[in-house]
């Protein structure tokens, strides 16, 4: 751009326009390619039935297909292997943080920068309105198109992202606003620059701050909750997970590599690590499992958003009643874990 301006002053806007169109085309291509390619093998039959339902002409056939679709969905989701569950949680078409933000909140004013070193686009934060009430919204945005994913670094934040989140938390506490965090990340970004700027200390600082924060914190894992990078914004009074989301100490492929030096044993690791929403509920690590009606959030994003909105609404009512105290939150996290006490 600078180059064109230096030779022909008038050429600049033209160049930008052209580049914009090209980028838009590119992302459109990516999206359309995405739609076709992102049907997971075990979903094929469901997608077929859905297509037939759309084409069905009379009510009888429609009812018949609907019933079959229900059966098929139930069967498929009940039989998923642990690795298929991981694939589902990482599904490119699952709604992202921003998709929920636009569906659930009346308004969202994004704020930028960590006030220390920069702006991290993987971590989004700002002021949102929920049924006339102001909340602070923070979450990782993985991105919907290839160029957005690159721009957002696939939802993997640098320390600047965690410090931006911290800045939002501090503001929320000062202004007595409840916090909603939306978790969707493979983890904090493993990069030499991230290390240099203190990735570990940045996450640790958030954990400590959220543990003592004097305002209500709601957290939801919508897709992937990857290790410390997820926990860094997920120390909530009420932590919930979507039915097909996963939350884990370490990605199954990493676990397989570390324990058995063989990443292809990821299926075995995925089963052993117990990473599904129901597993976590069983361990009392989360407080609720949010159902995904209509065959998963990626197939019925609107329905999933409604479920989440209801959960947030209930949480905010309880927040108004003073149900959430820092002491209760501390007690909840202090109880987590299973150990033996051999006297």
């Amino acid at each position: 751009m600078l180059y064109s301006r230096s030779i022909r002053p008038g050429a600049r806007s033209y160049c930008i326009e052209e580049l914009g169109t090209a980028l838009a085309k590119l992302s459109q291509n990516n999206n359309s390619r995405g739609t076709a390619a992102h049907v997971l093998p075990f979903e094929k039959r469901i997608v077929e039935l859905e297509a037939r339902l759309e084409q069905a002409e009379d009510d009888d056939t429609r009812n018949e297909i609907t019933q079959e679709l229900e059966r098929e969905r139930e069967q498929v989701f009940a039989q998923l292997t642990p690795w298929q569950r991981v694939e589902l949680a990482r599904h490119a078409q699952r709604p992202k943080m921003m998709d929920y933000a636009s569906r659930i909140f009346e308004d969202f004013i994004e704020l930028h920068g960590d006030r220390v070193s920069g702006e991290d686009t993987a971590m989004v934060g700002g002021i949102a309105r929920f049924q006339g009430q102001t909340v602070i919204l923070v979450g990782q945005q993985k991105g919907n198109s290839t160029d957005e994913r690159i721009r957002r670094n696939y939802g993997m934040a640098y320390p600047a992202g965690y410090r931006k989140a911290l800045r939002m938390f501090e503001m929320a506490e000062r202004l007595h606003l409840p916090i909603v965090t939306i978790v969707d990340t493979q983890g904090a970004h493993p990069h030499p620059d991230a290390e240099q700027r203190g990735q570990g200390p940045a996450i640790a600082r958030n954990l400590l701050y959220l543990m003592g924060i004097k305002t209500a914190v709601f957290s939801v894992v919508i897709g992937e909750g990857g290790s410390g990078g997820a926990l860094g914004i997920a120390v909530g009074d009420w932590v919930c997970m979507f039915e097909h989301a996963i939350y884990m100490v370490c990605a199954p492929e990493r676990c397989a590599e570390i324990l058995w030096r063989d990443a292809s044993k990821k299926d075995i690791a995925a089963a052993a690590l117990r990473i599904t929403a129901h597993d976590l509920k069983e361990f009392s690590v989360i407080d609720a499992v949010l159902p995904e009606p209509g065959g998963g959030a990626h197939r019925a994003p609107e329905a999933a958003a409604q479920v989440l909105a209801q959960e947030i609404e209930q949480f905010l009512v309880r927040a108004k009643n003073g149900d959430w105290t820092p002491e209760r939150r501390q007690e909840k996290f202090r109880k987590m874990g299973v150990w033996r006490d051999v006297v």
Partner: protein
Amino acid sequence: MPFLKRRRFVSVIGRKSQVPDGMWMKCPGCNQAVTRKEIDENQQVCTHCDYHHRIGARKRIEFLVDPGSFQETHMGLQSADPLGFVVEETSYSYPKKVKESTEKSGMTEAIVTGFASIENTRTVLGAMEFGFLGGSMGSALGEKFCRAADDAVRERLPMVVFSSSGGARMMEGILSLMQMAKTADGVRAMNAAGVPFISVLTHPTTGGVWASFASLGDIILAEPHAHIGFAGPRLIEGALKVKLPEGFQSAEYQHEYGYVDQIVSRTEMRSVLGKLLAYLAPQ
């Protein structure tokens, strides 16, 4: 063609102290021959190059505290197997690993906690044991840390913890991840009560331990050349296909970028801690 071979990054991870039984040994740091006696008398630190051989939690406590002052606490807390992490396909059994580790290291968990005096200041002390499942943080470790922190709050004593850990203990899954939040709360309680918390980083302090209590000290000290960081070098190199510079994530690196207050040689640790504790202990 060997001259085209990429020079591999020399990681400080995987340094093992190879102390043979003989009278002489070769120091892995400077390759010089040193007598075992010399090293033994110098707290397992090379007298030529200051290379720190890895030591266990018991030895560390012995080197550090006023003789006879250590009273161990919370000894009964041990790891359970909450996930049922027994994988037949790879014949991997977590309970078996815990048992083996216990036999090998003589420890029941990857941290020892207790009360001690360091140069006459009473303190709560924690020392992690890398020899016990890589010093990994599971539920029992998190609980022990928090109980020790609560001891410090109740008795109004400072707390010192020596970290040495590969990170969270995968075999306890999500529960080990939650220990990060839990131990951070232990530190929060000490902060709120106004008792000082000194974190000492020894080789290695990585992953979930670095991203929780170990980096939350009021004061953070490190042993020379200790490996300290969040994401492991293998993970970063694998994910980004980059070569990491020599000295990446070393104690000196963390000191340079502002995450470590001082690098303190093991032989100096006692006097440095003694002074800090005397100055900072709640009056």
